[in-house]
């Protein structure tokens, strides 16, 4: 073996080691990224008002009292500030969080809630259609009544939608699994 070929060998060994190191870094980075993203996707976003779903559900409120459009519209709707004040004009008026809500009402400003369950723009989804077939809110949204701050219960991706759509009665499956059912 000549001197130069020895050198080449050690050089290629060095670059192999480098390559392995870099590959490790990439893999760690990707895994970390995926994990963190997943965690964040399912985490409860920070809201302008510390609203507790648990307290309200335990007090006996139905989902549809506030999200009243779910039966009639594509979107379930976020209650108006007026609706909040409908009760909180008299109930728990000394609570600092309730007073914050009352502040929005006095200024006639909307509360800038952060959306919890998000679908991309290319997905057509209708609450009305799903409620119409008798599906409960909890089926998709999980035990919101037990959550202090609302967070997504499941990752609402296409596989998850299809899991359910494919289990429907045979005569409906073709329609429910059609691309155009959701991607109009």
């Amino acid at each position, binding site marked *: 073996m000549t001197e130069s070929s020895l050198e080449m060998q050690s050089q290629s060994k060095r670059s192999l080691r480098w390559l392995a190191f870099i590959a490790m870094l990439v893999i760690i980075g*990707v895994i970390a990224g995926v994990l963190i*993203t997943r965690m964040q996707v399912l985490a409860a976003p920070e809201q302008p008002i510390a609203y507790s779903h648990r307290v309200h559900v335990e007090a006996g409120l139905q989902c549809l009292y506030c999200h009243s*459009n779910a039966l009639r519209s594509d979107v379930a709707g976020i209650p108006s500030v007026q609706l909040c004040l409908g009760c909180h004009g008299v109930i728990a008026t000394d609570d600092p969080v309730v007073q914050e809500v009352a502040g929005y009402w006095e200024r*006639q400003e*909307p509360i*800038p809630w*952060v959306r919890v369950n*998000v679908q991309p723009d290319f997905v057509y989804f209708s609450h009305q259609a799903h409620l119409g077939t008798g599906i409960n809110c909890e089926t998709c949204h999980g035990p919101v009544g037990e959550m202090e701050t609302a967070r997504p219960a499941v990752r609402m991706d296409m596989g998850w939608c299809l899991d359910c759509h494919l289990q429907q009665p045979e005569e409906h499956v073709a329609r429910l699994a059609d691309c155009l059912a959701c991607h109009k």
Partner: protein
Amino acid sequence: MKRKLTRRDFLQIATGATVITGFAPKLRRIILEPFVQPPEEVLPGEATWYASTCRQCRAGCGIVVRVVNGRAKKIEGNPLHPLNQGKLCARGQAGLQVLYNPDRIKNAVSQTGGRGSRHFEPLYWPDALDILFNKITSLSNPERLAFLGGMMPDHLYRLVVQFLDSLGAPPPVIFDLHSALEGRATALNLSQRFFGVPEFPVYDLSRSEVIFSFGANFLETWMSPVNLSRAYGEMRQGQFGGRGLLVQFEPRLSATAASADEWIPTPPGTEGFVALAIGRIIVEERLGHVGSHRPHAVLYQDVDVREMAAASEVSVEQLRRLARIFADADQAVAIPGGYLTSQKNGSASMLAVQALNLLVAQFGRLGGVFLSQPGPTNALRQTPVSGTQAEGAFSYQPIIDLVDRMERGQVDLLLIHGANPVFELPDATGFSEAIKRVPFVISFNSFVDETAVWSDLILPDHTYLEAWGYQVPAPGANRPLVSGQQPVVQPLYDTKSTADIILTLASRLGGEAAAALPWSDEVAYLQASAGELQGSSLSAYDARTRSGFWALWRQHGGWWSDREVPREPELTEIVTKPLPIVQPQFDGDQENYPFHLYPYSSILLSDGRGANLPWLQETPHPMTTARWETWVELNAETAASLGVADNDVVRVISPYGELEAPVVVYPGIRPDVVAMPVGQGHKDYGRFAQDRGSNPIKLIAPLEEPESGALAWGATRVRLEPTEGRKVLARLENLEGEGRESLR
């Protein structure tokens, strides 16, 4: 220096990027803002459609507006409305950009830097109303108050008339350039002379077999273009077993002329001569099949066909052929259009054209000429109090009188609603100077236009998608009709309805004003007006209660009859006198000013009120595909003689001013005519309109048509001078040209 990217570099960069991406995941954070107070009837995410009335021109088409989550998204024609039957034009569609325009005045303002400074400061509404109240009460004489209106909705016009009347002030002066360009004043005058009533005739185009249109660009801007375009479509599809025929007489090939079977480019001001010659031939040769022409012979006793042929440059053979076509048709109609009224012999030309309908007995016949039947809507029309307005409406004379009063210091307070005379009138009128002599000016405009700049206060009215009102379309449809207007969204800004301001003023003033205007607010007034129609046997709907009727009124977007109610015009004795032959007269001698200037109303920007809507600016003009500019249309022959080509800038000089604009070489125009679209050349009126193009109205002579008092806007001659300049027009087929950068 060049460095090669090695594999190592690549891997390093890739790793770095992946790690950074992995540790900083980008999540979509979406803010959902609920309503503070939810509007009634609104379901989030679901569209609600509200019926209302388009206010982009005077036609009064019915619209339905798609509203989602309290935001207006799309305007369409109201399918139930008898006038436009579900159709809508580009200007109507662009109405959303009036609502969402970034240059709207968002609250009451006072011009603190002095008039013309364009320095505005917000004003508290109660203070603004106090100022208005004090200005009116401190007038030494109500005669010193003047109200100048533009395209006001009918309900507001009625309120203003009643208000001014109760104060003892002179009636409102109405002027808008669009109406001048379509010749409304002369058309009313014609009806007055022919039928004894100052109303616009309804031409039943859909059932005509042959249409001779004399300068009526009814597919673009004339009178009620959506209604007439629809009728034109039906005429072409041949209800009577054949495709109808359209012949257009005008010096420039408009989009209407381009749709015609035949375009006859007559010299400006000679269209009436063609009609006279055709009439004479029909009478002389006893053409047609409607019986004897003997009673009509007197009309044409002074007409010499050869003279008329020479003046109008249409040969006698051709005139004879046209006369046969017209007289032999089962349903033929001649339309006296807007371009005729632009000449100093406008009334005579209009009369000559309308007389053709008499020869073929088309008054009150299918495919002919009708008047619209007001039915129970009469009380809601524009002329409710006294007959004073009817004849002077839309004409040039009242505004000249107003300028005169202002110049002589006889006006202490000027109120302006929807009018922009500083832009719309020729400079020679002297309006811009006269307004400076008025001590206090209040404008109710939604935008700071050239006239609002000269006001002390601007008390912005709502835009039409936020406002109440109604309009009795004129010309109407084939049945009694009122178009209702209602807010489709909450007002976006702190604006106030002018009708409400007037009602508040009246109740504060007390006395006669309060007695004349007893309504608590605009809606109460409209409910009372609409209620007058309840119980009519013609109604397309009815309800047992007032509130039920009001609900149906809003659902339908107005009130109309469920069936056609024709009204035959009655002829006056004018039809027994020889028709006048009046030679056209022009300002500017032929030697120094060899070309006729034809400032035409643009199908997109109309008279300039559309110039602040980028959708309309960006839409290519149908005949030239140009946009975002003013251009000069020249015949290829004319262009060659001047040595200019497309996009070369020429100077257009009239005895009253000059301007520069790029050339469009246009084969569809007479070599002795120069056409320019009206609409650009704004100095104010928002970011999309101002400092763009030039205003051809500034070139025209302040001439008046003597019979009707209309502005003779087509009777000015100009000369052209080539310049060194070149300005590439933005067109449909190129990516050059200025304008579009303002959208970025």
